[in-house]
């Protein structure tokens, strides 16, 4: 997952966020794929705001959650959740917090 935040002064721009909790759960396997993990948890890392999960199964449908409450108090954008198909080779899930 890649986590971003829209700056207050430039809401159309994006700045990476460090330390956002991300988690994922495989919903269904479409065909044979790579990897051996059906769930993952972690934190995005600065300065890029990226958290990679190299062992997560691909060629599958995933539900991925980004929880900004780990770094914001109070969290202005709380939890973002996406469900996508992840093709062979992987995919990127972007979560942007807009206040």
């Amino acid at each position, binding site marked *: 997952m890649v986590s*971003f*935040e*829209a*700056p*207050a*002064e*430039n809401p*159309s*721009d*994006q*700045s*990476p966020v*460090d*330390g956002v909790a991300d988690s994922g759960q495989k919903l269904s396997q479409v065909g044979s794929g790579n990897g051996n993990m059906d769930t993952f948890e*972690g*934190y995005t*890392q*600065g*300065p*890029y*705001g*990226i958290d*990679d999960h*190299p*062992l997560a199964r691909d060629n599958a449908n995933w539900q991925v959650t980004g929880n900004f409450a*780990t*770094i*914001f108090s109070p969290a*202005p954008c709380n939890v973002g959740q996406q469900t996508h198909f992840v093709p062979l*080779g*992987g*995919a*990127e899930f972007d979560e942007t917090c807009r*206040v």
Partner: protein
Amino acid sequence: MPRLVASMLAILGELAAFLAGGCSWGHVRDRERILFSTIGTRLFQDYVFSIRPNGSGLKAVLKPEPNRSYMFASANSMSGPMLVTVHELAPGNDKVEDHLYFWSPDVDNWQRVLPGSAPQGPGILSPDGNSAVYCARSVGSPPETSLRVVDLRTGESRELVAADSFKGLYLPSWGVLGKIAFIRTFRSGGLRTELLEMPSHGGEQTVLVPPEDGAMSAAYSPDGREIVVWMKEGLEIVALDSGDRRVVLKRASIGSDYSFRSWGMGGLAWSEEGQIALSLLKKKTGESELWIVNADGSNPKRIYATTAGQILVSQFIQ
């Protein structure tokens, strides 16, 4: 291929570059290239490229491998050593870490800059190439990032700006007059950013752009007397002696479909020839675009675009 034929092909290639570059043979513009990376949309799909400022001659400098890719590179010349942020699989194969390497392209020698256990992230070379400033992220909750300077001859690292749990430190730029500028972020009714500057050996920090102007990325001019900043109004140049500011590229002039996506490092570059390079994200198409504009604001143009990743400008090199 016979050497003579190879030489003739090389001459033809240079002739094509000469014609594409506006016929300025022998001029520095022909030798200048923009060094940039593309942050891929999948794991280990991050490249380092170079391209001429006219958009010709795209060249992959570092291509990803099965278990490593290249997030950012800093260099003072194409032939000289590069400071490279390598995104690579950690022991155990279950996570990915960033490590700083010093790469010598001529002999393809890779050397770790810091021990693997040391907090490290992307960095940029000093103008003399003897040191680098980098983001050092420690694991914690909340995570903290400090700015550190490493002497590349001895491997000794020192803290430049201490970490603060409530403030982020990103996007250092090192000017030829011995100053380092950086972005500090904090939260107060949303994400706020400010641009500060300090001597590279440490000392007092000066605010160059206050939080209300929303600085996102900065790069020094080649003479170190000005700094170009992407901020609320768009691309602006700040004179460091007087504080005078002038808008180079108004955000409104490029349309609302564009946004600036910062990656915590790089993002802008300023050439000896007075050109500024930046990347913009076209929201409608998802294309990441590399733009060039003259420092006087004239001739803004897109020179390259891709959907395979997000362009992250590093610097102009020769």
